[in-house]
């Protein structure tokens, strides 16, 4: 399966701290995306990093990609209570309608 796996499964930090989540995948990819899901809601796209990129920033988000290790990390700096959500990585498929394969997610809780 190409499905990614995030770790940790759950992470609890104090407001203001940084949160780091990791994702590992199994096959070659064209890109990797990170999505956020508030409880009981749909997913929201956060950031996309292509296979030829090693690092990307968007506001308080920093994503790294190591294709040799088939892994990615998402760093949220200066966390806020509103960052509390589940975070999923998704890798693209080489066949089909550009399908995405989602990991099992990391549940982040930011304590005010």
């Amino acid at each position: 399966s190409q499905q990614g796996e995030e770790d940790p499964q759950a992470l609890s930090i104090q407001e203001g701290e940084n949160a780091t989540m990791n994702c590992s995948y199994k096959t070659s990819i064209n890109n990797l995306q990170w999505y956020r899901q508030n409880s009981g809601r749909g997913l929201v796209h956060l950031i996309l990093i292509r296979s030829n990129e090693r690092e990307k920033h968007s506001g308080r988000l920093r994503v790294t990609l190591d294709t040799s290790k088939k892994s990615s990390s998402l760093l949220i700096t200066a966390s806020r209570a509103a960052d509390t959500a589940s975070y999923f990585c998704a890798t693209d498929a080489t066949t089909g309608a550009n399908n995405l394969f989602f990991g099992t997610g990391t549940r982040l809780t930011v304590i005010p």
Partner: protein
Amino acid sequence: SQTIHQWPATLVQPVGSPLSLECTVEGTSNPNLYWYRQAAGRGLQLLFYSVGIGQISSEVPQNLSASRPQDRQFILSSKKLLLSDSGFYLCAWKRADYQETQYFGPGTRLLVL
């Protein structure tokens, strides 16, 4: 701008009853459409995707079916629900070009009793 709608938001159905969940997209043409299921506390499992009207691809064998009667309408159905069909169902769309990002609807929570 584009928007995606799903309804109902919540549904409680008895085992053996039929199911019809609807998803519509506004503000775009010829999108790729997707149905996912998410078990409690788990990741997303792709159920069906469609690249055009009447074109449905199934990713996993199951008790469900999908149809795309119109360009921006995607329907998830079942003739007889099973307990194991309970979950959170998400519809998503993406542009049918090189763009990789998928945009998700608010989801339907289905509880089969």
